[in-house]
């Protein structure tokens, strides 16, 4: 039984982690491509259209990976989490079905037109199809996060005698106070990934003395969008999302911040330290006094509840994992703001394209937004444990009752092998597209 739950959780965690490497770029990049296309329509400079075309190639490959790894997500609710699906399907099925009907059809119908229809449609209509693909992918994110928000902070429901959750207020699913901060936080983070990728490829071209004009355009666009989105991730969206956790999941907040004991007179903010679960303290701690109380309540001396005030049965299952995920996310987010700020300062001093160390830093920063996005989601998901529906349905009560651990391990191994192949193919083909670079318009 324990094994079974473990493999079910591993399979979902593995497949969703791998899947979300792709949509986080898709969502942000679709907006940047629409931006390039829009600049082209306004300025008539071919460079913008060529830039849009180049990024569309990366987008198409990335989108395909997102689609093929996304279908298993919807199936897994039923295959591995049948009990959860049975009990809550009347509610989360609502938002998931809406995602299929409203966004997947929109994306898939117009993607083909967007990728292959430039000549057929003309530039203006082509811009419109790009915009619709962008709209579809952002709507998809919205409906997924509406589902996620209901699991974090259930609203508009009642529980029947047989344990089933039924909806009694449709509107509440969308006015859920958890939804908007999480959605904006996530979309801003997706913009971070795509801006950093665009900047990194641009810097790569500049450092290699290839595609010089495109290199400049990508770096410039990347760092400007990168700075704006890095700031938005922290404030106001990250701040609001964290306040939701403080208010509705205080035990999760204590674990995220590594607060084992309530500190009278205000809590310090932990920068570095390893949770020691045996002695219930942080080892090798570096912390700044009273900052956390101020950030949370705008009061230097506000009291923040430590883990000691809660019953261990409601502790997040993996406290060190949650703590690290959160700290990696926040640490990286801070570095992103710093780097992009420097880059933008150099841009305005007209020195960015020759400041080699910043260009090198931009290239090396490429994987880190992916790590920050992933650890951000781990913070949310590990923070929700041990619940599937916060405070109402335990994760252990949601797995499929008839699927044995041997079958789940079999499929988990299959997914690992298959996704390893997909990852290698993606890197190989993306490398090929990047190496070839943008093509100048021939007419």
């Amino acid at each position, binding site marked *: 039984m324990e094994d079974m739950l473990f493999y079910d959780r591993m399979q979902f965690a593995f497949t969703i982690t791998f899947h979300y490497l792709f949509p986080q770029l898709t969502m942000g990049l679709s907006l940047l491509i629409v931006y390039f296309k829009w600049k082209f329509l306004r300025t008539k400079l071919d460079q913008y259209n060529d830039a849009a075309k180049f990024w569309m190639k990366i987008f198409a*490959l990335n989108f*395909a990976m997102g*689609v*093929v*790894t996304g*279908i*298993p997500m*919807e*199936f897994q*609710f*039923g*295959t*591995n989490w*049948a*009990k959860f*699906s*049975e009990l*809550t*399907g*009347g509610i989360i*099925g*609502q938002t*998931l*079905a*809406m*995602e*299929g*009907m*409203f966004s*997947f*059809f929109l994306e*898939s*119908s*117009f*993607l*083909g*037109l967007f990728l*292959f229809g430039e*000549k*057929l*449609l003309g530039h203006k209509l082509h811009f419109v199809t790009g915009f619709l693909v962008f709209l579809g992918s952002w709507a998809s994110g919205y409906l997924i996060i509406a589902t996620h928000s209901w699991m974090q902070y259930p609203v508009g429901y009642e529980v*029947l005698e047989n344990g*089933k959750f*039924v*909806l*009694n207020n*449709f509107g509440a699913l969308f006015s859920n106070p958890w939804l908007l901060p999480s959605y904006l936080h996530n979309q801003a983070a997706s913009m971070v990934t795509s801006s950093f990728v665009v900047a990194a490829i641009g810097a790569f071209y500049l450092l290699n003395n290839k595609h010089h004009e495109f290199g400049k355009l990508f770096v410039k666009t990347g760092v400007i969008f990168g700075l704006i989105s890095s700031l938005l991730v922290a404030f106001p969206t990250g701040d609001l999302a964290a306040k939701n956790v403080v208010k509705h999941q205080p035990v999760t907040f204590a674990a995220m911040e590594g607060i084992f004991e309530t500190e009278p007179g205000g809590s310090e903010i932990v920068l570095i330290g390893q949770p020691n679960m045996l002695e219930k303290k942080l080892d090798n701690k570096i912390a700044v006094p009273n900052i956390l109380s101020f950030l949370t309540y705008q009061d230097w001396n506000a009291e923040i509840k430590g883990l000691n005030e809660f019953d261990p049965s409601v502790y997040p299952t993996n406290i060190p994992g949650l703590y690290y995920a959160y700290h990696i996310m926040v640490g990286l987010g801070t570095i992103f703001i710093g780097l992009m700020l420097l880059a933008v300062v150099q841009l305005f001093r007209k020195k960015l394209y020759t400041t080699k160390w910043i260009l090198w830093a931009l290239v090396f920063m490429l994987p880190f937004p992916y790590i920050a996005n992933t650890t951000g989601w781990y913070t949310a998901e590990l923070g929700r444990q041990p619940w599937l529906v916060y405070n109402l349905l335990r994760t252990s009560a949601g797995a*499929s*009752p*008839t*699927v*044995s651990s041997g*079958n789940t391990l079999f*499929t988990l191994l*299959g997914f690992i092998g*298959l996704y390893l192949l*997909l990852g290698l*193919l993606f890197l190989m*083909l993306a490398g*090929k597209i990047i190496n070839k670079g943008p093509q100048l318009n021939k007419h």
Partner: protein
Amino acid sequence: MELFWYIVLMTMLAVYVILDGYDFGAGIIHLFFAKTEKDKKTITSAIGPFWDANEVWLIASGGVLFFAFPTLYASSFSGFYLPLIMILWLLIFRAIGLELRGQVHNHMWEAIWDKAFGISSLLLALFFGVALGNVVRGVNLGNVVDGVSTHEAHYFFLPLWNPTFSPQAEELGIIDWFTLLLGIISVVALTIHGANWVIFKTNSDLNEKLKKVVFNLNIVLVVLVVISLLIWHIIEPNPFHNFIDKPWLIIFPLITLTGLFGLFKVKTFKKHGLGFLFSSLFLLGGLTSTVASIFPKVLPSTNSINPDLTLYSVAAHEYGLTVGLYWFPVAALLVAVYMFIQYKVFNGKMDDIGYGEH
């Protein structure tokens, strides 16, 4: 209200089978009949801009199943665990076969992805037929052993096969000779369907040959359908009772027959879309007749201890189903608009409008 969503779900599934069915069929044609590079290009261009959107019908049907009939979604997806995950893997291989083939110009690379696309299409056609066979045959709900349920009454688990491959065995498997027969019918029908789509949407050199293929396979199809009807009583002693009790249901078998007989005329059709129309009718009729034969059951029980799952016993709560009426028609209308635009832009023969040459 349950009935409304049942009809919606079945309609969406039928649309899925007709649309993605031609993609699978094109894959099978590609596997067995495309010899030259030009043939292969023409066939993939016939489904190029459509297959992705077609696949969304499966995902959206899954979504509606989850939303309107959560208990059925939970029971069947966990019970058919292994084949469903394998279907996912095959869908992934089909997609990357189509998407990645053109990215590198190397004959080994192209050969790998050609086969990935063709073989996964073939297996998907087979598996979906087997799946339909499992639904009408029924499953051992509650996993009853020696007269005692070992699980809740609406849960079960099936291995891929049992040693006897018999649909009447005590311990059932996903694949037995009855479900395999339905799988083969599905492969034959979808091959015909895919051939018709290629004939409809391209000027392929293969078209004349494909018309003969359709004609010959249609004879096979008629024989297989007759055999399946003759042995149907093995899984259901009284297989046609629904059609006798509710005579208006006979419209579904009539649709099937229209499709089957229409297909024999394929060689003489002046309009290339007619063959596709008739194979669509066959698929529509075949699917609807099969589910109508067990209506209102959605998953029969093969033991006498636990009751069949019916569309009423697996549906979501009233409020949720009612509120769905507000957003679903809007979404359905939008989908119709998207499809109209898509098929309008890519109207006509794909090689005439220069699709794929970019």
